[in-house]
């Protein structure tokens, strides 16, 4: 059997990698994808804990996280479309002022 | 030998099954193209492939050789990795979906291990099929984008938007069946459709149950035709429209991979339709006639073999006069094999299942030869405004029927 701590360590590593990508990447879409990576890492932690403690609430919560992430992706990508249309750039360093 | 088998069940039991099934699948893919060309041709009052081998039976072989030997052109500026990945992704996903389909009920022993007539029997078998279908959107979208060209990009985006839209209607139309069966396991869905009403009407999901799933089946089949990008929903890849859509810039073997992926998903969807709505490997013969009904497969094969021999000996070319009667003799031999008691039991389920799958494939080809194609906005309107509400209505009615009949 694989110890639960292995899964949690993997979840921590994935979350850290997502955080690194969030800080260092300059394309808005890639930054958004790193947010999804962090959410996935958290989902893995939830499922691992659900298995370790023998309760199903962890999986129910994962279900809700997936649904909310879908809604967030839809709206976030809509916002990205508008930004790309107005500023003609996808570089986060160039959309850092309210005045165009 | 059987201790080795029980310690490594994957090697000795699953691997031969995978190899046999893969071989059968690839052969039937090839001959499905022949079947389609012949049927569409006869619908259009012409002959179809006729010269390459008797009745064009060696045409798939010729096509395969052509695809292998054509020059492989890669467009300039194409993203190399994604350009090579897209057809592989499409084909491997389409072929993988055959792994969860059950072909028959009987268990048989191979090297001392009891196995069923399926590669796996998953508790979430149906969900795995939908997962594979939803991942196959990527093959189309990435193919269109990586070709670095206008028409493939537009065709790819249109095709993938169409596939995503009809996926919703596809999965919703199946929920009625799931409510009635109570499980995602395909084998259990089939066994829940066992039994006969009034002694002669089989209790398949299309005819019986708390609510006969007629709307569900019609939505499912229409959505499946659209999902596999087949006529009349094939605007994105039709020759007269966007050149050839997302696979314009693909040359010999990669185009063949897309081609095979499309036919493989046709076969998968036909298998699903047979399993979910028409009882899978259950026989339609009422129980009163069970005794002599066991010899229907034998009789069918023997008839086909004898007809082929009788036609073959008077064929035009010498090659045909040799090949066709040989095929007929092979079929008669199979018929004799099927009459022996052990194999007869085993072959009942797969025989009826394959008959149903063949009927659905014929309907697929028939629809292609008959109906004109839809314009893209009509297509999307049908998916969102007609099929999805119908599927939701089916779910509501099925739930009401289940609560009412108290099952």
């Amino acid at each position, binding site marked *: 059997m694989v*110890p639960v701590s292995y899964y949690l360590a993997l979840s921590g590593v994935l*979350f850290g990698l997502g955080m690194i990508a969030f800080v260092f990447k300059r394309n808005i879409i*890639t930054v958004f994808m790193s947010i999804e990576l962090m959410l996935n890492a958290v989902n*893995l932690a939830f*499922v691992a804990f659900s298995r370790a403690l023998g309760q*199903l609430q962890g999986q129910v919560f994962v*279900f809700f996280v997936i649904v909310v992430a879908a809604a967030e992706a839809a709206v976030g990508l809509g916002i990205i479309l508008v930004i790309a249309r107005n500023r003609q750039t996808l570089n986060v360093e160039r959309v850092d002022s309210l005045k165009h | 030998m059987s201790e080795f088998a029980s310690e490594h069940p994957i090697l000795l039991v699953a691997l031969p099954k995978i190899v046999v099934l893969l071989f059968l699948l690839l052969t039937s893919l090839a001959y499905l193209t022949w079947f389609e060309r012949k049927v569409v041709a006869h619908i259009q009052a012409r002959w179809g492939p006729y010269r390459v081998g008797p009745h064009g039976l060696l045409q798939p072989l010729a096509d395969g050789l052509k695809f292998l030997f054509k020059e492989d052109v890669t467009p300039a500026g194409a993203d190399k*990795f994604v350009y090579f990945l897209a057809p592989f992704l499409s084909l491997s996903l389409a072929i993988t979906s055959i792994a969860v389909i059950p072909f028959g009920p009987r268990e048989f022993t191979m090297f001392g291990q009891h196995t069923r007539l399926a590669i796996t029997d998953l508790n979430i078998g149906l*969900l795995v099929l939908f997962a594979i279908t*939803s991942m196959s959107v990527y093959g189309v979208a990435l193919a269109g984008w990586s070709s670095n060209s206008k028409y493939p990009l537009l065709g790819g985006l249109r095709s993938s938007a169409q596939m995503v839209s009809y996926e919703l209607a596809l999965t919703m139309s199946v929920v009625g069946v799931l409510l009635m069966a109570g499980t995602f396991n395909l084998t259990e869905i089939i066994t829940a459709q066992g039994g006969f009403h009034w002694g002669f009407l089989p209790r398949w999901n299309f005819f019986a149950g708390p609510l006969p799933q007629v709307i569900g089946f019609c939505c499912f089949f229409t959505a499946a035709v659209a999902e596999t990008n087949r006529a009349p929903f094939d605007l994105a890849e039709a020759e007269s429209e966007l050149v050839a859509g997302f696979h314009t810039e693909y040359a010999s073997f990669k185009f063949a991979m897309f081609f095979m992926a499309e036919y493989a998903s046709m076969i998968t969807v036909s298998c699903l339709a047979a399993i979910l709505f028409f009882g899978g490997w259950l026989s339609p013969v009422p129980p009163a006639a069970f005794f002599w009904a066991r010899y229907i497969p034998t009789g069918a094969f023997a008839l086909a073999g004898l007809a082929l021999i009788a036609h073959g000996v008077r064929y035009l070319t010498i090659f045909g006069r040799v090949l066709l009667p040989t095929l007929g003799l092979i079929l008669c031999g199979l018929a004799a094999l099927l009459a022996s008691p052990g194999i007869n039991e085993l072959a009942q389920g797969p025989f009826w299942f394959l008959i149903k799958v063949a009927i659905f494939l014929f309907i697929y080809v028939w629809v292609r030869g008959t109906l004109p194609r839809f314009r893209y906005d009509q297509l999307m309107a049908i998916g969102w405004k007609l099929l999805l509400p119908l599927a939701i209505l089916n779910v509501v009615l099925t739930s009401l029927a289940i609560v009412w009949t108290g099952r």
Partner: protein
Amino acid sequence: MTLPLFLFSVLAVVAVAGAVSLILQRHPIHSALSLIVVMVALAGLYLLLGAEFIAAVQVIVYGGAIMVLFVFVIMLLNAGEEERTDFSRMARWAGLPLAAVFLVEVAYGVARAASRLPTAAQAPVSTRELAELLFRDYVFPFELTSFLILVAVLGAIVLARREDSD
């Protein structure tokens, strides 16, 4: 090396490789493909943890719908490769080892703190149990999420609409 441990190692290596590839790739479409690989690897890990319905939902919703949305937007916006900026030498030569050290520390700390938890060997969770929990105790959040999705759909349509057409 038992089979679950072997499968876990393979899937974990694939997931971490996908995440690293997301950081290192220059074109957003390659980053998106790497993220899809991570998600499929995570679905395999959920299967190892006995959560079969969640694994299927992860592939269908996350891998088959959300990432398709990302790929569409990348194609529509014709996102090109990222421009090269001048990283300071220090950031490149010291940043990577420090990031690796940080990650190893996180993994070690988490693993040590959680080593007391048992791994009960249970059967995979059936969809029926999950559904009973979802539709009995959590039916109110369930209905709220359907409302949330409706709001998200409306928001996305309004945001992406062009100003000149009506």
